[in-house]
């Protein structure tokens, strides 16, 4: 945590209300996101207990497993969940747009978005996907045909959630923490109810007091996936027993509805809060990635693509890791250039600065290293009051032109001299408008929105012996399909 966000937290504690740490919204919010609040039975790895799910705030679907230890009931629950989720997900695979490129390609105009309360919800979604994607509709333990399809989709969403800046599956507490600093600790922010209490306390109440009230599990039951131990012992245990003796799930349903409804309201409250913020400039660029990935996954599944194996092969894991790192870098840079409040963190750290252009040497031409002919390499001098901690040679980008490469030539007191390296047109002198002008207020940062280069990796079949040699591609097995789920 940076000194800026820590300062904002201190301010929030003092003011009794969360303070902004962003001026624009950095997550994509779909017009009709699907809110998904899954619960599991305490002590079990992935025994679904209930879920509240839907796209209409007024009309949630409540799904329950009246006896969570019963395997058949679990699969019935997953089939019911598939009934709700698959039409929503597959509904986006209808409107197509064609992308103009060297080889034009098609992608869906929009994509599904699932919102869960916290990171626990993301992790549980991943486990639900893992425990259902290998199942089969035939064989010794057949399940409903939609169950493995849902398993593949849940796996896809949980995987996307690991990519920085993806909005396909969002943990609400993370989305809120991107925009608000509360007066409590990041650990306590993982509780959606207390986090929201700080952000929008009831009229006349301080955030601290509202958060304290929101900690009462009777007012705000846990947002899952784990239920409150007292609820388990005092209510749920009896309700499950009642189901076993009477065969009626009414009592379990009502008990779980009471635990889920408050979180359902909080989720939609949070959606409204985030909608109130104007969307940041690059949110759409990132959502396009989510749409493209959704398009690819739809096509893969349509071709009968087999479920993702239990463990990635070496090359695939290396590619994935490189991609994860590269999107983090891009996302950090985009967020900072989109939002002056986020840029402060980098300015305070000395990695970015804002100032006024006081001199431009547009006519400067030198012979760049490795070249034979002189080329334009203008110098721009900026006066800043920021504590710049950059040494000559560091590569900088600016919010003015996020593609233009520049480098630090020298720093003298409050003057920083930069050399502009590209994006000046093909002429002998820089194209008009390609350089900042004297009097402009500019912001330069050691942040590269282009992301890193993915390292060159061998093809799967050329995997060296050090990494296990060429992997045997995953083929679904009977054991996987019949795996115990007890």
């Amino acid at each position, binding site marked *: *945590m940076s000194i800026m966000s*820590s300062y904002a937290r*201190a301010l929030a504690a003092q003011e009794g209300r969360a303070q902004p740490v962003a001026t624009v919204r950095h997550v994509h919010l779909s017009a009709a996101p699907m809110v998904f609040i899954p619960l599991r039975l305490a002590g079990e790895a992935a025994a679904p207990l209930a879920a509240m799910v839907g796209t209409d705030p007024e009309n949630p679907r409540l799904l329950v497993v009246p006896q969570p230890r019963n395997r058949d009931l679990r699969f019935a629950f997953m089939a019911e969940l598939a009934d709700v989720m698959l039409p929503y997900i597959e509904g986006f695979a209808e409107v197509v747009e064609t992308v103009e490129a060297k080889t034009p390609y098609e992608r869906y105009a929009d994509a599904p978005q699932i919102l869960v309360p916290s990171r626990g919800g993301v992790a549980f979604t991943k486990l639900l996907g893992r425990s259902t994607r290998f199942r089969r509709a035939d064989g010794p333990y057949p399940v409903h045909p939609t169950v493995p399809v849902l398993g593949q989709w849940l796996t896809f969403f949980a995987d996307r959630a690991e990519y920085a800046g993806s909005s396909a599956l969002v943990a609400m507490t993370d989305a809120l923490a991107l925009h608000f600093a509360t007066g409590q*600790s990041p*650990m306590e922010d993982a509780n959606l109810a207390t986090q929201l209490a700080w952000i929008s306390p009831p009229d006349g109440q301080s955030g601290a007091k509202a958060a304290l009230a929101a900690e009462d599990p009777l007012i705000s039951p846990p947002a899952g996936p784990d239920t409150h131990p007292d609820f388990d012992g005092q209510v749920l*245990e009896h309700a499950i027993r009642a189901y076993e003796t009477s065969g009626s799930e009414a009592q379990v349903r009502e008990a779980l509805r009471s635990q889920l409804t408050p979180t359902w309201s909080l989720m939609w409250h949070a959606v409204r809060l985030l909608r109130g913020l104007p969307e940041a400039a690059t949110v759409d660029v990132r959502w396009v990635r989510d749409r493209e990935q959704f398009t690819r996954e739809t096509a893969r599944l349509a071709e009968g693509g087999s479920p993702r194996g239990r463990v990635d092969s070496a090359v695939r894991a290396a590619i994935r890791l490189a991609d994860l790192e590269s999107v983090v870098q891009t996302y950090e840079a985009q967020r900072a250039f989109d939002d002056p409040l986020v840029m402060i963190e980098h300015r305070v750290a000395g990695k970015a600065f804002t100032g006024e252009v006081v001199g431009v040497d547009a006519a400067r031409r030198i012979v760049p290293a490795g070249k034979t002919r002189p080329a334009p390499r203008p110098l721009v001098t900026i006066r800043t009051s920021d504590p710049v901690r950059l040494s000559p040679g560091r590569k900088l980008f600016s919010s003015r032109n996020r593609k233009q490469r520049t480098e630090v030539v020298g720093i003298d007191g409050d003057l920083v001299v930069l050399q502009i390296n590209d994006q000046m047109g093909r002429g002998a002198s820089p194209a008009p408008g390609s350089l900042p002008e004297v009097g402009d207020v500019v912001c330069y940062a050691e942040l590269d929105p282009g992301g890193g280069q993915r390292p060159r990796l061998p093809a799967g079949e050329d995997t060296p012996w050090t990494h296990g040699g060429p992997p045997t591609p995953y083929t679904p097995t009977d054991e996987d399909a019949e795996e115990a789920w007890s």
Partner: protein
Amino acid sequence: MNRLDTLRGPVAPLDHNARTIAALAVNPGCDRRALLDAAGVDKQKTAAYVGHPAPFGQSPFAITRAASFDALVKANGCAHLLRLLRETLGLSISEAAYADISDVGGNDSHQMRHTRTRALLKRAAAGGDGSCTLFDHPLLKLTVAGHEVYLEPSIIAFQIEGRFHVVEIKSFAVVDDQADAGQVAAAARQSAVYVHALRELFAAEGLDPERVSHDVVLVCPKDFANHPTATLLDVRQQLAALRRQLSRLTRIDRILEELPADFTFDLETQSPDEVGKAVGSVGARFAPECLSSCEMALFCRAEARGDGSTDLLGRTARDALGGLESIPAVLGLADESRPPSPEQLEIAEQLRYVRRLYTEAIA
């Protein structure tokens, strides 16, 4: 009656366990917790009595599941465990004896069980005929902050390749060879306590402590089934941390010296207000992490809030704010309403700068 008994009042002391010691070692500077634990005070009751009941508990479902998994692994003289030690870990164990030390001839007092554990372990270490023995319900003893506590690891296995191993049975799942990092870390910290206690016992008996392996056998359910799987968990790092923290633990005597002779947390003779004052008069070091491990956490948090302490914002925030202790001090230095002391000059300058940029950006 010694001072600690007076503190607790006329009720039986609560036992320390590996979890509480691990938690203590996570926050070694907290005198309050050290004293309450040393005196065996029931923190859960005390916290509820002073109006700040503990924010956590255990679900009956989780307890049932843990107990049934434990029973499964230990069934038939630890048959499952032996198979795992052989197959999964590739250890050469031909056959094994099984010794249950949950009572000694019908006597289940801690003293008796510990003496028996000691005798059995000593005999096993001295004999060394290569056969394996699994000790179920052993009872170890450890001195924590000048106070002796008993500890009960799941199982101690002797001997695997000539060494003693602590076996820890946990009911969280290992899915595709991956388990929840937080739970594994907690298991490693707890197991380290057992390894440490076992090594102390060896040292006290004049045996080589290194005969206790730093590799703990962690037994968990595999994937989504109830079937156990085993992994070796290297706890050297946790051991080193634990040893360092235990040596740093404030001596209870030092804390007691500063308290009046009739000082007590006795819930029967004292009003909630008096108990609250008594608890409050022993220094605490609150961190949000306490909320998941210490029963007194909500009491301490309320106290920290009353003081406007930066501890409320979390350890990283506190560090980022240059270790300043109070929120009003942070904001006072930032808006220049409070003059910085010489050692605060640097952080004060940073805070003024942050405040200026922050105010500009949200304007």
